[in-house]
């Protein structure tokens, strides 16, 4: 079982890789919309990449209103 820290790290790694942002520029508390410069369609892309990576389902309503990596990671953690 991954720890929340591991999950958060993997979320940050994945976001940095796919949205071409330097990993060291991303922190758990960052607003991913602002930090990654993504719109709603790209947020769905992030959601799908996270589901595929962690092999979980993340219902949209569980991540609605979530905008920081740490909370997003906690939603994933609850589904692992």
């Amino acid at each position: 079982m991954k720890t929340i820290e591991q999950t958060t790290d993997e979320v940050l790694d994945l976001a940095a890789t796919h949205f071409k942002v330097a990993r060291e520029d991303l922190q758990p508390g960052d607003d991913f919309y602002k930090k990654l410069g993504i719109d709603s369609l790209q947020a769905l892309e992030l959601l799908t990449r996270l589901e595929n990576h962690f092999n979980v389902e993340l219902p949209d309503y569980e991540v609605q209103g979530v905008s920081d990596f740490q909370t997003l990671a906690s939603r994933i953690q609850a589904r692992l």
Partner: protein
Amino acid sequence: MNDYKGQTLAWRLSEGVVELTLDRPPANEIGLAMLEDLERLAAALPALESKASALIVHSNQKAGFSAGADLRQLYEGAQKLDARAAAKGVREFLERIHAVLNRLDVSPLTTIAAVHGVCFGGGFELALACDLIIADKMARFCFPELRLGLIPGFGGIPRLKRDIGNGVVRDLLLTGRSINATKGLAVGLVSQVAAEGEALRAARATAAQTTKFDRATAAAAKKFIKLLPAEELRQEIDIFCELFTRPAVMEGLRKFVENAGPHPYLP
């Protein structure tokens, strides 16, 4: 007409396969222009069916297969009319899109939706009219209509119900949540999952396979196994039109159209 290029889509017949390319920025929203192009396809189908074995529907837009009905056009059109006239216009649109999708649904061709990215609402309903859905790993399927105070109006519920278990239909419909291709495969919605960006290639390989079979046999098999849920499709139009007259719908459409935030596609 073997080849056609319209405002919102194009098709081309080659080696027994018709490829229909949706190409209306930003995300193949289905409004009047796409409806007219789809009606041209429906009119051309008899000729295409005499020469082809399969038809692939795919998108040239990066965002995905289709984000669904053109809600901006729907809202702005309805704003210019009184409630009665707006409802009449919506019913006419639905009758026309149903005629097109029903024709595609029963085509003797083997029809394949090659899906990437968003496949929402009316776009999902277009994919459901096809015989097979081949999706890449980044595809997402959703019926977000309930948040607008509506139900899917292009035949989505009867077609989804025809294909998968009612429990999953209720989950998708009543929560408005989106699911990815892997989940779609697990519930029987998606027939094949391809790597990212490979759905069209997989669809082409599948279409090529269908060209090996006798067309009359394939058409008979399809006719036997894929029945048009005609009565439910009629009921859907009536329910949609009844719901559409409620003030909550205009309010929901207004919120969507005026939403400048980052979440408009998240139900």
